[in-house]
């Protein structure tokens, strides 16, 4: 099988990276762009260049062992000059570190339009590797800020981060995002930076916050969830911020009595333990060491809280007062 060599090019700002994409087909370019265009926060400094090339290939790649990193559908290994990764679908990529170039190869399984979802995993690998190389630790957390307070919110997917953040925005807080942040020590202490100013909200959020409107008119975020992607500023103007100095770490749990919100102060020893579980740390000492150093420095600055969210909590906005009191 032969493939045309026409290149479909585009460029995307993804935090501290400016990613140029060159794809062999429009469908491939669109699939790569899907993940990149989520990053809609303007970066203050000059971004570093990263290249992603994507092409179709005849045969799926043979699986790698995943010694550098193993995810549910992707395995990553160090190879001479960089990294290599393979996915369950047979999609693969190779990273040439000195050129800052990722080459993604997607097996042509019949119809061209059938680009595997695994491409998203490979693009995510390219971004996280790029951010780490610039000294940033990618943190799977949301964040809210008001005055001198900046709280990192940690919970698994579906754990209530977005809804709690939305409730706090209505009380004058700002947000850096609900899911993905970058953390770095800038010499004066850890700083958190926003990457994405979208929320993934469930349509029933409207029951508590009517201003979100009818979310069912929007397409689903993915086939696996009822949630819809919305731009935060479209609903809560001026509610986003780009940067913050983290002061608190809040672990969210679901449970407790209906309509209640319980706050417990966590021992300092638990803060680092929670942080370590919000960051992907490769099984590679050179990659892991700076991440551990960033998280260790960050943990020393944070007050830890556990917040247990009861069902139907947001009917009465004053129920958040206990949390706000602790975050002063």
């Amino acid at each position, binding site marked *: 099988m032969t493939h045309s060599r026409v290149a479909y090019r585009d460029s995307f700002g993804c935090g501290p990276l400016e990613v140029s994409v060159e794809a062999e087909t429009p469908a491939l370019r669109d699939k790569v762009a899907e993940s990149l265009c989520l990053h809609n926060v303007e970066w203050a400094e000059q971004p570093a260049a990263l290249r992603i090339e994507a092409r179709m290939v005849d045969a799926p790649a043979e699986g790698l062992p995943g010694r550098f*990193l*193993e*995810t*549910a559908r*992707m395995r*990553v290994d160090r190879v001479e000059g960089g990294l290599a990764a393979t996915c369950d679908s047979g999609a693969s990529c190779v990273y040439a570190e000195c050129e800052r170039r990722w080459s993604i190869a997607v097996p042509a399984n019949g119809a061209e339009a059938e680009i595997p979802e695994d491409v998203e*995993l490979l693009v*995510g*690998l390219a*971004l*996280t*590797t790029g951010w780490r190389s610039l000294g940033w630790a*990618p943190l*799977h957390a949301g964040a809210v800020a008001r005055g001198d307070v900046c709280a990192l919110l940690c919970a*698994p*997917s579906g754990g209530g981060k977005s809804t709690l953040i939305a409730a706090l925005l209505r009380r004058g807080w700002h947000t850096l995002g609900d899911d*993905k942040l970058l953390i770095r020590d800038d010499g004066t202490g850890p700083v958190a930076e926003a990457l994405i100013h979208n929320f993934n909200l469930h349509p029933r959020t409207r029951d508590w916050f009517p201003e979100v409107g009818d979310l069912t008119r929007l397409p689903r975020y993915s086939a696996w969830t009822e949630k819809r992607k919305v731009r935060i500023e479209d609903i809560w103007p001026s509610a986003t911020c780009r940067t913050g100095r983290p002061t608190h770490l809040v672990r969210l749990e679901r449970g407790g009595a209906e309509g209640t919100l319980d706050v417990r102060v966590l021992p300092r*020893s638990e803060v*680092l*333990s929670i942080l*370590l*579980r*919000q*960051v*992907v*740390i490769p*099984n*590679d*000492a050179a990659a*892991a*060491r700076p991440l*551990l*150093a960033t*998280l*260790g*420095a960050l*943990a*020393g600055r944070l007050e830890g809280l556990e917040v247990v969210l009861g069902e139907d909590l947001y009917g009465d906005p004053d129920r958040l007062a206990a949390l706000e009191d602790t975050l002063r």
Partner: protein
Amino acid sequence: MSDATATWTLRPDVVTTVVEDGAVLLDLESKYFYSVNATGWAVLQLFEAGATREHAEERCNGWGAPDSDGEAIARFLDLLLEERLVEANGAPPQTPEVAVQGGWAAPKIEKHKEPLQKIMTSAFDPSLPLAE
């Protein structure tokens, strides 16, 4: 570490970072992580360079360890070995300049209960993947 004259070094896939009251160690193979106090970190720095058990015990005495802490020191060193945080090699022992921050206290190491995930959702999301 039964042989007091063997040189032991921290395993290459155990990474460390200094924190306010000591250090944190992450074993990249087992994904367990450990907290050590300032004295424990001083001892570990000896093994970063390469040291014998005998040498580590002597340095503890030099840092002001009372006889009554001998058991705690032995327990700490045993645990480093049991948890495979250190390994024997043929390298000659080193004598790095290491000080105990804040003065002597018996070395302590705490193993955190739950290891980090070995298999994750994605390169950004370290949570346990959902079953498909």
